[in-house]
């Protein structure tokens, strides 16, 4: 069989190639290459006569391979492919040599360029000899387009496509479409207002039945290929049901949270419930919520601290109390004894000190009592079920409260004469007055909780008897009342007490005589309570001895400090080895400890006794407060076996035990813990009991939003110190059990509540829910992820403004009245923060204003490019200042670039206005004159050749248009490249400004390069045309340059399957061969590079073809 007949066609490209490359030499060289039948050169091979040369030779010389040596195949490969096709040759039998971009233009010497051209042609000829005819594949396309970005470019694209009858998804990150243009005041050169020309388009988009609008939405992932993309879109929760919201704004009116208004460029505040701007489309509100505030996330019970602070600051005390009681029924108790982790995590401490959250809660409780208010009992439809709660400590009472609220009949069993558990026996009265506890218990009784006191489990009743009595479920909340002993000689000596027995006796008015010296052993809150109680009983020397160091002490820091103020001494790193005394304690023998280098199970360093370091301390009373454990003595042995796990009670997340219908909560489950944890546990178990008695499965875990941890912009907050809780003076405390904390007054409490930063914006205070008559607010809304099938994608994600704080010279952020362009647009806008009046921050009208061009543009330090719009916006600003004020305007420009239709005319018009001074020179520096207080703008007037300092009242900077901060992520998601300036890279800078490297993905507007509104609109429409050109034929040709398996060589090793990024290769298990799905295959060739046997090939880039190319480039 005869070899192929190759025609070689060398393009001069005018002089672009021919000036450097000796075309005749290359032609002669190529004519002599094997299988070359024809070799020609021509001035413009891409021109019609040039293409005709090729077509004629195919016909007349029976050529079956073509090599074109010209510009880059990225430029004219489609042209020459078409030429071959129309000449009757399969277009894949054509190969190109790039002798312009990669030869004549980059090579200095003519000889080297000619040599390289020869090599490149040789390479192409060698490859051409091995080319095979291929047929394009046709796949159907999905006729829907996705437009990403709802600025003017995206709107235009979406409308054009929709008006042509095609479906469009328009995805916008913000809550409304409109983009940056929605912020503008007037637009050059016609000075019609942006809103007047933009909002009709926004409304048209909102009403067009072919457009599906997805606001608050972002594209997360794109897969598939041209005509058949799968796009994953995250619709962020807006906490308002768009279908129900009427846009009335009642939610915003009652929202207590103020935050910075980003739409007003930080020059105004808005509420957490807000509409993005007046003309927003869709015309609905949303709630700006960034997770849970730190206080709420820190609370074991999930009490919404930020929420009740916001309500208290507004004077809405009833609502605040109701919000607390959703998670914490006992406001009076909690506000007195809680160790308030909410305050420890409060983000106000990033500014000064944490908000006194618990103090505000205490005020609310006091206010309720003072005004003799009885909170409405929680409503619950009667279930007809009854529950026995055993134990009336915080966990039991909490469970009783919530069970009652759920509609069940609740009976609380208590072994003592009065309910309250440790709240009554162990918490000293100076922290929790008895009447506060009694008031909460009275309320429970009024609500309908029945108490049976003096009833002890195991003695007076059993689990079996409760069941027999008809209780549908039992909740055990009997605490951890068994105290751990010291296990040292002399421990049973009179005068040695355990903490609970000591505190209990004092609470019941049977305080033992303590003498003058009291030693408390232990480091928890019970130890501190015992020490402070001893002080009140008249002891002169009270010391707390703890075996580790202060850092490891479990007691809360506030309690430790209060004890110290009352005169309690602390001794660390000592353990008792014996109690001294016969018949009556006289002292304790201690040994000193040091901390081990390793840590124990609790994560703390272990105390290790130092031999020979024993010492004696005299004492009249010793209180042992080293911990409590669970006592299971009240259960029968079988129950005990099922309930116990070592020293603990075995219970699930919801408090469910191994005994059917028996649940457990509080210290009984957790071991000694805090009041708030016990209340949380009681509520949790109540929900489980509720589910059980109703015959339902255990509830889903309760939703907890992650805490908002992003950095806060602290510059918006002024320091305002925390209000100190008024306390009884120390002298008054030590001989009395009167309550130490006196509580805030109303003014203090409201001021303290107002210190809240609203760190997560919305605090979920519930005001909007109550205000919304349409029931549109839904705080439980979650983000939603949808997957959409589209055929084409238009990326129109826009720009952002260069941040002038990047350069100190502009004074932005340092001086008032130095504004960015967009800030000026808002200031000048009739719907802006000043209703369109141009005022300095202090309310004066400026007497002189400077407008600076090129802030961050045409500047090697920032962005080298020209942002194209700033000259015109500057001229517009100068005009607007003159129109609205009597100020003199200094317009500082480097070059005046007024290139567009009617632009120069506009400039000339403004230049003729009175008191507008155009100065050619870059505004170099903005300073403040300390004497006059005026801003001073330094500029070199390059026409006069003088340096000037111009005093002004306002400076308007015209910052560069820069790529959006997330443009890198967006580029990766859509497979777009970025040009050196960071904007998205078009396929060809002049001829393909909307196409990208990924087929079916187009760009439009300022994400591609800085441009003005007319150009942006044009490109948006252009992108729409691109999308429709692709989609309307109903099918798309896709490249046949895919993988292929030579079955005879395939060993079935799976290597290619593992390599393929598109899962396009699978195994035919019967034949043990790899199979390529040619629709999924994109032709990258990674499989072929991996295949050990050479069975996997890529059409048009086959091993033999590339190897012959290598021979070609090395031959010359």
């Amino acid at each position, binding site marked *: 069989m005869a070899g192929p007949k190759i025609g070689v066609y060398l393009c001069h490209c005018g002089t672009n190639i021919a000036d450097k490359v000796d075309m005749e030499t290359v032609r002669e060289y190529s004519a002599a290459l094997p299988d070359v039948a024809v070799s020609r050169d021509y001035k413009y091979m891409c021109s019609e006569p040039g293409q005709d040369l090729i077509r004629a030779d195919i016909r007349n010389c029976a050529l079956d391979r073509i090599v074109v040596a010209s510009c*880059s*195949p*990225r*430029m004219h490969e489609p042209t020459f492919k078409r030429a071959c096709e129309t000449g009757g040759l399969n277009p894949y039998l054509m190969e190109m040599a*790039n002798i*312009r*971009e*990669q*030869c004549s*233009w*980059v*090579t*200095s*010497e003519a*000889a*080297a*360029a000619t*040599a*390289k051209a020869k*090599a*490149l042609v040789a*390479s192409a000829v060698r490859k051409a000899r091995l080319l095979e005819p291929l047929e394009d594949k046709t796949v159907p396309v999905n006729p829907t387009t996705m437009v990403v970005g709802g600025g003017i470019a995206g709107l235009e694209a979406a409308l054009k496509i929709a008006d042509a009858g095609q479906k469009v998804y328009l995805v916008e990150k913000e809550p409304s479409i409109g983009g940056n243009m929605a912020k503008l005041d007037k637009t050059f050169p016609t000075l019609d207002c942006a809103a007047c020309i933009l909002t009709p388009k926004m409304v048209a988009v909102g009403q067009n039945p072919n457009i599906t609008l997805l606001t608050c939405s972002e594209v997360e992932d794109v897969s598939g290929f041209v005509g058949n993309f799968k796009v994953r879109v995250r619709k962020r929760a807006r906490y308002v049901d768009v279908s129900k919201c009427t846009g009335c704004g009642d939610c915003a009116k009652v929202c207590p949270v103020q935050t910075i208004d980003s739409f007003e460029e930080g020059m105004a505040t808005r509420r957490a419930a807000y509409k993005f701007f007046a003309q927003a489309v869709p015309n609905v509100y949303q709630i700006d919520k960034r997770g849970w505030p730190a206080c709420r996330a820190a609370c074991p019970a999930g009490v919404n601290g930020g929420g009740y602070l916001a309500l208290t600051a507004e004077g809405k005390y009833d609502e605040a109390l109701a919000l607390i009681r959703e998670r914490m029924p006992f406001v009076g108790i909690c506000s007195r004894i809680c160790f308030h982790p909410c305050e420890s995590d409060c983000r106000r401490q990033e500014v000064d000190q944490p908000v006194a959250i618990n103090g505000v809660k205490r005020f609310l409780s006091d206010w309720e009592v003072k005004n003799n208010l009885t909170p409405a009992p929680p409503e619950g439809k009667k279930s007809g079920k009854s529950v026995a709660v055993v134990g009336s400590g915080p966990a039991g009472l909490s469970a009783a409260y919530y069970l009652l609220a759920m509609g069940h009949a609740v009976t609380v069993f208590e072994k003592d004469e009065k309910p309250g558990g440790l709240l009554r026996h162990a918490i000293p009265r100076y922290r929790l007055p008895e009447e506060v506890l009694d008031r909460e218990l009275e309320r429970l009784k009024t609500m309908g909780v029945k108490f049976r006191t003096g009833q002890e489990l195991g003695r007076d009743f059993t689990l079996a008897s409760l069941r027999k009595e008809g209780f549908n479920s039992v909740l055990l909340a009997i605490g951890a009342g068994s105290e751990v002993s010291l296990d040292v000689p002399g421990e049973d000596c009179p005068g040695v007490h355990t903490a609970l027995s000591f505190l209990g006796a004092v609470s019941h008015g049977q305080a033992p005589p303590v003498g003058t010296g009291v030693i408390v052993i232990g480091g928890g809150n019970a130890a501190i309570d015992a020490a402070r109680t001893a002080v009140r009983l008249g002891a002169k020397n009270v010391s707390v001895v703890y075996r580790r160091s202060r850092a490891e002490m479990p007691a809360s820091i506030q309690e430790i400090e209060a004890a110290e103020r009352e005169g309690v001494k602390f001794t660390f790193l000592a353990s008792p080895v014996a109690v001294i005394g016969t018949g009556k304690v006289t002292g304790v023998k201690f040994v000193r400890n040091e901390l081990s280098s390793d840590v124990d199970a609790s994560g703390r360093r272990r105390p290790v006794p130092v031999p020979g370091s024993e010492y004696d301390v005299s004492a009249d009373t010793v209180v042992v407060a080293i911990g409590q454990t669970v006592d299971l003595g009240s259960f029968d042995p079988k129950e005990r076996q099922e309930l116990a796990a070592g020293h603990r009670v075995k219970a699930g997340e919801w408090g469910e035990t191994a005994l059917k219908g028996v649940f457990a909560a509080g210290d009984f489950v957790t071991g000694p813990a805090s009041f708030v944890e016990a209340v949380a546990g009681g509520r949790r178990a109540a929900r489980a009991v509720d589910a059980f008695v109703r015959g339902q499965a255990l509830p889903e875990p309760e939703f907890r939003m992650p805490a908002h941890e992003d950095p806060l912009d602290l510059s918006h907050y002024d320091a305002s110190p925390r209000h100190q809780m008024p306390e009884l003076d120390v002298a008054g405390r030590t001989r009395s059990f009167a309550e130490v904390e006196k509580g805030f007054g109303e003014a203090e409490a409201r001021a303290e509540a107002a210190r809240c930063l609203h760190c997560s914006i919305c605090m979920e205070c519930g005001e909007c829910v109550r205000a919304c008559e349409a029931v549109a607010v839904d705080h439980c809304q979650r983000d939603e992820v949808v997957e959409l099938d589209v055929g084409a994608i238009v990326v129109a994600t826009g720009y952002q403004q260069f941040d002038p704080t990047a350069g100190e010279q502009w004074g932005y952020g340092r001086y008032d009245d130095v504004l960015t362009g967009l800030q000026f647009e808002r200031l000048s806008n009739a719907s802006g923060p000043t209703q369109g009046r141009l005022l300095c921050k202090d309310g004066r009208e400026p007497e002189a204003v400077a407008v600076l061009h090129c802030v961050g543009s045409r500047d090697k330090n920032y962005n080298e490019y020209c942002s194209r719009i700033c000259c015109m916006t500057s001229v517009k600003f100068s005009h607007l200042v003159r129109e609205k004020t009597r100020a003199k305007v200094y317009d500082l420009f480097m070059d005046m670039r007024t290139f567009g239709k009617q632009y120069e005319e506009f400039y000339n018009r403004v230049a003729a206005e009175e008191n507008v001074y155009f100065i050619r020179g870059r505004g170099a520096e903005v300073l403040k004159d300390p004497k006059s207080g005026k801003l001073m703008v330094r500029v070199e007037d390059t026409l006069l050749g003088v340096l000037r300092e111009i005093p002004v009242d306002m400076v308007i900077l015209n910052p560069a248009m820069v790529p959006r901060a997330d443009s890198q992520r967006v*580029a*990766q998601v859509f*497979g777009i*490249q*970025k*040009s*050196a300036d960071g904007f998205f*890279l078009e396929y060809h800078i002049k001829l393909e400004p909307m196409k990208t*490297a*990924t087929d079916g993905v187009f760009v439009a507007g300022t994400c591609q390069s800085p441009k003005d509104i007319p150009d942006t609109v044009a490109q948006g429409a252009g992108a729409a045309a691109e999308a429709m050109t692709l989609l309307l034929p109903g099918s798309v040709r896709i490249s046949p*340059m895919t993988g292929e398996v030579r079955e005879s060589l395939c060993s079935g090793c799976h290597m290619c399957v593992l*390599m393929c*990024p*598109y899962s396009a290769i699978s195994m035919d298990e019967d034949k043990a061969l790899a199979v390529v799905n040619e629709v999924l295959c*994109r*032709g*990258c*060739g*990674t499989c*072929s*590079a*991996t295949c050990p046997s050479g069975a996997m090939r*890529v059409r048009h*880039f086959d*091993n033999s073809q*590339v*190897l012959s*190319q*290598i*021979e070609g*480039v*090395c*031959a010359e």
Partner: protein
Amino acid sequence: MSGKDTFEPRIVAFLCNWCSYTAADLAGIARLKYPGNVRIIRVMCSGRVAPGFILKAFHEGADGVLVGGCHPGDCHYLEGNYKTLKRKLVMDRLLDQFGIEKDRFRLEWISGAEGEKLARVANEMTERVRRLGPLGRTRERLARADALELRNEGGAASG
């Protein structure tokens, strides 16, 4: 080959269609200059560059081989460039065993916007390979070293 006095190394560059080949076009459009003996072969993805291509280039007389791919995360085919990087690490060891110096084989991430980087890499690489001399000389040196080793049989192998 033009220079008679100085050695002009021949460098074969495999550039991926989407990033580095585009960068080479951009270098041309910007009229940046690099030596004429850097010869470019277009592949769709740097992941297409089989180890055999690199060995073939050296075998055909290349003094250096450059592979250009998209930056990590930017690959037009999702992750072809990561596979290229893995192969590069293996190739480095293989070429080392052949006695081919590290500087003769280079992998670079060059985006479609980095025409300047492509020209710089081409210039740098030419300079380094020029300093190493022709690959043929490496072969001769290796042959001499082998002979030396044979003579020193029994003695400690010198580096």
